[in-house]
């Protein structure tokens, strides 16, 4: 069977026009951080929530806010604090004294883009409520269940350097995030430009250039991006190598991995690779796409053993070894 790649490519060409517009607007505000912006777009296009981890001051929140500014859509920022309650996020039922009835007051989660800022500052019950909504894409308030809007994307940030007064996300719930990004410092030139731009009299702002309709249409095309069975098997090999490393010639990793990646990893790797190909205006997925996105999909899904921690071997090192070992098709 021959796939009509030309038709897919033509659709991609048409539906990906907004990518450049978004990128241009974002780059008016954010200097550098191309990696982060591209991953946020991948999350947006493949319905995958994104967890951004990095030390304070790396424009994580600003990048998310700027991205939301470029889309004519609802955006809510929730600052997670220790006293936040699930109802503050999800919504609650309020008793109307005048009418003597109960009415539903929807929470900030009912939005296209939700920024869960410093998600690890709230207790587990709030995190669980949000993470469940992320997975189910619906929220039950009282007796009623409400569907969340489409697109619905949660972008959460957390700071890895503080331990006191934080509630680390449980591993099982971190799995709900399609991508976990590790944000690094800008380089010298970028930092110089940030300093100049942010100390100017008028700080730049991004304009809304894309409608939610454009995003939804693009998401459909992302699903059409062709993924060959060879690539699918390559993805499965990578995910299985996290569970049975010995079978892939990685016996040395066996004692370092406590739990390998879940099937959600395979699904997300496949979707994220498609979105990556879409961003490159390509109608099919290549191993390059899988390799490019593999670390962000897998780094939070592999739980390393105590021995690995003692030897200061991170899940990132394990993923790197796997990606460097599995043969590309």
């Amino acid at each position, binding site marked *: *069977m*021959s*796939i009509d*790649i030309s038709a897919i490519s033509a659709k991609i060409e048409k539906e990906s026009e907004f990518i450049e517009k978004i990128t241009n607007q974002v780059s008016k505000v954010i200097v550098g951080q191309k990696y982060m912006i591209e991953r946020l777009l991948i999350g947006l296009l493949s319905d995958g929530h994104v967890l951004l981890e990095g030390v304070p001051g790396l424009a994580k929140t600003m990048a998310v806010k700027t991205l939301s500014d470029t889309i004519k859509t609802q955006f809510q920022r929730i600052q997670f604090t220790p006293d936040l309650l699930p109802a503050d996020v999800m919504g609650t039922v309020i008793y109307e004294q005048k009418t003597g009835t109960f009415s539903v007051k929807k929470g900030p989660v009912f939005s296209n883009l939700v920024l869960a800022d410093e998600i690890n500052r709230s207790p587990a019950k709030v995190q669980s409520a949000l993470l469940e909504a992320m997975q189910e894409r619906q929220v039950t308030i009282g007796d009623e269940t409400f569907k969340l809007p489409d697109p619905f994307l949660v972008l959460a940030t957390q700071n890895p350097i503080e331990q006191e007064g934080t509630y680390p996300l449980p591993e099982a719930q971190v799995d709900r995030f399609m991508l976990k990004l590790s944000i690094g410092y800008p380089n010298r030139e970028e930092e110089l430009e940030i300093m100049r731009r942010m100390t100017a009299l008028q700080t730049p702002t991004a304009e809304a250039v894309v409608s939610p309709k454009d995003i939804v249409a693009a998401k459909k095309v992302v699903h059409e991006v*062709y993924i*060959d069975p*060879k*690539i699918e098997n390559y993805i499965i090999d990578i995910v299985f190598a996290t569970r049975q490393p010995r079978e892939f010639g990685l016996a040395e990793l066996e004692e370092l991995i406590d739990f390998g990646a879940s099937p959600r990893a395979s699904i997300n790797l496949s979707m994220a690779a498609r979105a990556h190909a879409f961003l490159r205006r390509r*109608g*099919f*997925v*290549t*191993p*390059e796409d899988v*390799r490019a996105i593999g670390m962000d999909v897998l780094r939070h899904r592999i739980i390393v053993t105590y021995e690995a921690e003692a030897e200061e071997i991170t899940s990132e090192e394990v993923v790197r070894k796997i990606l*460097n*070992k*599995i*043969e*590309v*098709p």
Partner: protein
Amino acid sequence: MKLITWRSVITLFIFFNTCTVIAQDADSLAMSAISLNAFVRQSEVPQNRTVELVIRLHWSGDLDRYEVHAFDDPILQNLQIQGSGSTNRVASENGVTKAIREYTFTFKPEAIGMGYIESFIVKYTDLSSGVEHRLTTNRIPVKVIDPIPDAASKAWIVPVLIVLVAGGAFLVVQNVRKKKAARQKNQVDSADAVAMEEEYLQLLRESVDLNEPTLNGGKSFSDISRLLRRFLHERFDAPGLEATTTQVIDSLSDRKLNDRVVNEIKEILTSADISKFSGKAVDRANLERAYTIVESILQKSLRGEIL
């Protein structure tokens, strides 16, 4: 001339570096026949060395003209006696016979500071007259200074030098052996390289038969690209089958390959990616071109024209 110079040196040495005492009693002075010199060979001595005291009696005439009485060990301060000895000599100077009797004492310093050899009396009898006479030395000071490294403490130098020399010789031998082995390996490698390229050419012919009417284009393209990747890995140590096309291409730029060849490799691998992963039917002309280019790369490498 030589003799004079030697004597002058000895005289100066004694003059400057020793404490010389010439003491004679009135009787002997009157006769001017016997004289006594008492001196130390060094006025300064390191604490871990010894100093020698020389008592020299000399007179005109034969040795048996005087009988020198045995005398006690000198009284010492901050010094210890280690040994003693005596010698007799007879010499002729301008036709006159001279007798010399020398007593030597070896002392070891006790502590840093000043040491002294107290004055002592030498008694002798003039055998011609049977009269006993006495000679007295002065008090002789010796300065005891900081010890100097003992020659024994440098005993390790010899074995270390031996080890170093042996080590150096071993390294030289090893180096020569390595160079020889490398030369032999290079010869073998060049022979292997020839064999490798021919082997890959053979594999190419076996895996893809362009005359086959029912040729599976997708599989053939995949075989050609894998063969090329394996060859690049083996021949140029490029990333192997676990690397993506971009990684392989990027690595080639560091290996100083001919630009034209790099572009050809890039074309093949990119076309192979498209044919392998796009689900598109493979164009026969593209496959034939890929085959020809890979064959040509292998042949160029065989002729050494790839770098």
